[in-house]
């Protein structure tokens, strides 16, 4: 299983998508999945849970997930962006990470996340 042993954080403000992503990574063998709809909740999960990788939406409606991306980079936790707003990522402030554009194929999402965790 591609994501065996992974403790995955999903940051996604659209709950239907978050649910779907959770199902996908679970199906791909993830050990555990936590979802957050706000950056604050996500940072809390990072601090309290043992996150091994993450899927970040970029635009959270009222905020961006930049703080979370920076925190993950600082903690060297691999992550991928899952977004329709690749334009926002053009800003150099964003740490480099693989980008999966919405809507995404189930397989490409798990494969790219796997690649990120294996690097």
């Amino acid at each position, binding site marked *: 299983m591609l994501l065996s042993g992974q403790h995955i954080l999903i940051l996604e403000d*659209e*709950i*239907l*998508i978050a*649910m*779907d*992503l959770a*199902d*996908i990574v679970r199906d791909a063998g993830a050990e555990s999945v936590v979802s957050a*709809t706000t950056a604050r909740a996500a940072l809390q999960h990072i601090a309290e849970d043992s996150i091994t990788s993450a899927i970040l939406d970029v*635009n959270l*409606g009222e905020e961006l997930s930049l703080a979370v991306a920076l925190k993950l980079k600082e903690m060297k936790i691999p992550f991928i962006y899952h*977004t*329709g*707003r690749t334009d926002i990522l053009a800003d150099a402030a964003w740490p480099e990470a693989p980008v999966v554009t*919405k*809507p*995404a194929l*189930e397989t490409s999402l798990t494969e790219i996340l796997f690649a990120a965790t294996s690097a």
Partner: protein
Amino acid sequence: VSKYEAVLASDPRACLLVSVEGIVQSANAAARHILPTIEQGSNLISQSASPDDVSAYLRLCARTRGPIPGKIGLNAEDGLTSLWICHGGLVDHASSYNALIVLRLQDTKFGKAAFEKLNQKINALNSEIAWKSRAELASAHLAAIVATSTDAIYSKDLNKTVTSWNLGAERMFGYSAKEIIGKSVLCLIPAEKLDEEKMILERLIAGESLKSVETLRQTREGCLLEVSITPSAIRDRSGRTIGFSQIVRDITARKNNERSLVAAHSTFEKLINNSPFGIFAVDADFRITLVSAGAHKAFANVHPLIGRDLAEALRIIWPEPEASEFIGHFRETLETGHTYHSPNTVLSRRDTAELEAYDWKVERLTLPDGRLGIVCHYYDLSERQLLEAALRESEKRFRGTFENASVGIAHVGLQGEWLDFNDRLCELLGYSRTELLDRSLKCLQHPDDQAASAELLGQLLAGKLPHFQCEERYFRKDGSIVWVGVSVGLQSGNESDFSFLIYVVRDITSLKAAQDHQTFLMGELAHRSKNQLAVINAMARQTARNASSLDDFSVLFERRLKGLAVSIDLLVTGKWSGVGLGELIDRQLEPFKGDQGRLRCEGPVVLLNNTAAEAIGLALHELATNCLKYGAWSVPAGIVEVTWNFETANDTPVLRLNWVERGGPHVSKPTHRGFGHNVIEKLVAQKLNAKVDLAYLSDGVTWTLLLPSNQLIT
């Protein structure tokens, strides 16, 4: 007597016929001519100078026949006695007492003719004496004139030695007569004039008479004098030149006058000729004598100009009757000295047909020739009038633009003081003109916008910006806020002009609202376009996970898609500015509710925001799906009540929405939490920050939503 009268009349000599007593009986024409006092009846004896001698002579004649010579002196009227030689003789002696005597008279050297000659001589002598005495007087006068003349008069002999020297000469040259008489005149003549003097004397000696000569002389002190000398030769009886006289007049003052006159004349001419204004001078004969450079334009068609009769010139330029009127003014000024001034004569010219305007003035003055003349000076107002008309037109247009512009316009001083503003600005800010004058633009500005506009204004005044635009809020008189687009430009003036700011202010409140809405829509669009497909994707996958078959998936997915579409439909209908809760319920439950009366809705009018409308729409769809499949609507008697009302929870107003199923089959909490369950419980709670309570009661499902009021549009 008459017998002798005829004889006497034929005698050419002067004959008298007298009685012995001396009574004249008759006298012929010749006798009457030479003796006008003698007539018939006159007494010759009593008129004679010696009556006894005459009486004795007549008695002698009366006694003697034949002519007897004798002498008779007769007294004449002029007191002189004329002496006559006469030959008398008796012609009738009828009686010795009445004897008639004929006297034939003959003039002597003491007769009348001789006296006349004498008188002529005396008269001639008298007039000679009178002339001589007048000549003596004249000579004395002349001497006095010479002595007292202010002109220097002196004479010199052939050796140039001074022989006479008058008082005038003493005064003029500073030498007294005593000093200079007997000395040479050369001391009076400057070296450079010696040749001239020599030539004058030569010409005089040759007999030429000379007119006065203007030359130089020097005084005892060595000062040069400008003089006019009148030299003449003095000759003796034989015509030989024995000396010369000189009359010397000091003309220094006259020369100075002449020079200053020439200078004045040339200054006058220069003044007029070079004047850029229209000036011309007309002499006493009404002829144009001087024309300034600036006046040539007006007289362009008058050739020749100088010396031309002014009346003629004016008639070339101007039409009648105005030309004659102008000429009249010029003549009147020349005659009376009254200044004439016409501040604004506007007239079409005769020669060019162009309309011209002049401010002109005519004054009399004494021209350099010493006679009276007139000077006319004028301004050509034609161009100024055109400019003024253009300026007026421009001002009118500007004023019209300013007043009728659809935007507010204001001119504001650099200290923020009003210079001018139009009515539109008053309307825009809701103040009357007077009220607005009492307030500055800045004090009406929204505090949050002041810093930004002050910064831009600073840059404009520092010359870093040519102008700027900004969008700002102002408070209207009624307290409402008006959004305006302001364009500010700087009219920078130089020293003589002043600088001010030009504000163009337009109301953009509705534009701003439209922009806000558009921004919002763009945000919605961006949000939706990025997420909608992902949502549908997720929805499809979730539906697929729980579907028992492909058909089952198709039906469920299609319905969910429709439910989503209904919410979006309502959002579009409401122009993305809210959806009524009642309407949302109606539309979402329409496909499920079946018969009339199986759905009861009750609640006040509530407008949900877009997120709430979408989330609640999805939840209602899932509730209805489950209800139709497992709940109240799965049996004929079951009904659903949807009610909503406002209440307060933890001191904050919330909307309570209740979904209550009645009359359905017994329900129990499902073991598997599928997509629908997630939507009903999690999605709504998380998305709307709402509290959701889902209960599976014995008579049906109840779902309660406590929605924060910030999800509503008031």
